[in-house]
């Protein structure tokens, strides 16, 4: 173990496919560059203090650098300062930290990505009608950004489209299914639904399937086998995907660069894409999908 470079990544989650894809990217980079990483995250995105404890334990292990996806950027500042004082570079990933400590931030613009989803939705339902959102979380950064990105775009650009309901399914597929079914029951004339992460999107697909309605245009977020299958079969019109593997890869890469004292850009944007039946098999898209 001695002399080996150790880079712990403290993420916002662990079990979700999105975070597993980030981990895959990080593992790839670690292998290529010969460093050891760990990847950890709390059970859900509300557990801010659990994440702080994870960060504290990571610091105890004399890391070479740290990757950190802050659930709440302010809460972690004392520990980040501690890392800074110890000369441990910090790379923020997924969302930024309100501080100049991180050497760089590898992220995607969730607001812009969700706005794109709104544009696509408007296009598919013909610029007018009723839509609803099944979001994964009411308080986490990603949940808020994706919801608000979608809602604000709808409000500012598409006055003919009414967002009739925004409800939350905790990213749990079963719960999201029940939420989507209730929305469909309350709004039999719904034109479209947007799910803000994999669990929410699959929940909507399940609900549409179980209710037997086929007039609803579904737009999802992230990938995963069930989602890509739904797109291929036409049950889902399309989805936004980020590049989680890229986020993980770039984070580790940037961490090593920072350890070597290299200059880094303020933000490393790993980009997002809209994919549907037409482009799902493109190489560029396939590279960022996970299942």
């Amino acid at each position, binding site marked *: 173990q001695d002399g080996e470079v150790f880079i712990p990544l403290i993420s916002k989650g*662990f*079990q*979700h*496919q999105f975070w*597993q894809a980030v981990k895959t990217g990080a593992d790839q980079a670690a292998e290529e560059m010969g460093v050891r990483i760990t990847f950890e995250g709390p*059970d859900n995105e509300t557990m801010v203090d659990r994440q702080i404890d994870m960060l504290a334990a990571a610091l105890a292990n004399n890391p070479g650098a740290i990757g950190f996806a802050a659930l709440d950027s302010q809460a972690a500042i004392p520990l980040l300062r501690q890392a800074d004082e110890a000369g441990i570079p910090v790379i923020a990933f997924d969302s930024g930290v309100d501080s100049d400590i991180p050497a760089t931030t590898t992220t995607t613009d969730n607001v812009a990505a969700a706005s794109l989803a709104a544009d696509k939705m408007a296009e598919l339902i013909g610029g007018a009608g009723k839509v609803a959102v099944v979001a994964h979380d*009411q308080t986490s950064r990603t949940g808020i950004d994706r919801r608000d990105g979608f809602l604000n775009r709808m409000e500012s650009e598409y006055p003919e489209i009414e967002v*009739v*309901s925004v*409800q*939350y399914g905790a990213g*749990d*597929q*079963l719960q999201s*299914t*029940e*939420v989507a*079914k*209730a*929305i469909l*029951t*309350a*709004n*039999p004339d719904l034109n479209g639904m947007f799910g803000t992460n994999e669990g929410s999107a*699959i929940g909507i697909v*399940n609900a549409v*399937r*179980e*209710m037997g309605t086929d007039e609803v245009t579904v737009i999802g977020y992230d990938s*995963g*086998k*069930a989602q890509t*299958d739904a797109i291929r079969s036409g049950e889902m019109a399309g989805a936004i995907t980020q590049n989680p593997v890229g986020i993980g890869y770039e984070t580790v890469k940037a961490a090593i660069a920072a350890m070597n004292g290299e200059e880094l850009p303020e933000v490393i944007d790993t980009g997002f894409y809209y994919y549907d039946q037409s482009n799902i098999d493109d190489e560029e898209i396939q590279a960022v999908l996970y*299942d």
Partner: protein
Amino acid sequence: MTTLSTDAPKSALSRLLMAVTHQKLLAFASLIVLLIGFSIASPNFMQTSNMIAILQATSVNGVLAIAVTLVIITGGIDLSVGTMMTFTAVITGVVLTFLGLPLLFGVMAAIATGAFCGSCSGTFVAKMKIPPFIATLGMMLILKGLSLVISGTRPIYFNDTPGFSEISRGSVLGEVFPALPLPNGVLILFIVAAVAAYILNRTVLGRYCFALGSNEESVRLSGVNTDRWKIAIYALAGAIVGVAGLLIASRLNSAQPALGLGYELEAIAAVVIGGTSLSGGRGSILGSLIGALIMAVLTNGLRVLSVAQEWQTVVTGAIIILAVYADMMRRKPS
């Protein structure tokens, strides 16, 4: 004050009616009040399709609640049902998707895995004298971790076993009586409930369930091998959890290894709302079923009304307290 367990044999229907009127009147009344209230508040609530949606939403939690009821009647508690359900689903995924065995093996694997996990908890409790809370909390964590390990932290899909999603979504009943398109999942819930109620009220196992919860030491001093019976009850509960694992896996057409945490509290809440006492010795399957229905109606109704999520939580909390209070009021004079 009285339990269903000791009634004299009567016709099933009259017993059901009696139970509803004598026993669960107010839990049942709360259910009716909720249904009426929501129907008035939203015209979309009282549709066949939504009623079916509610029943389907009850199915997983209902089956879990039935499993937990058995354990709670013995005076124990089972915190592991949520992650155990996931674990059985993952094992089913291994059997069907990784090994490619036929459907029946998957079904048997789920139930056998559940029974095995249950008997482990039971052994911890009965033989090692570990308090049920801790034994099943430990099991909860162990099974949660193992689900992730075995599945490689990714969902296992059942796309190679086409019949699998019919377990919960298909409608055998709907094929026979087109007017009654009840999904199989709901039918399975009712069958599990009927079987569990029969076991609880008509067999030795059920009798010892109540007796252990009532006064374990006295049962032991009656020369009964209490440890063995206790393990059997936990194993039966585990097998029922296996059925819940099948239902959820079939409904999601996948085993989601990260799911499961939090389901235990919901199941226990359904049981307690249904009038089963957490101190053991008293309780009924019918009550737990009604409890699970109350929770499903409440959640669905508030969502159909598009109540803001944060207020949904507040209202749910308040109604749970009120429903149980109403039930307490009724019992007081006795």
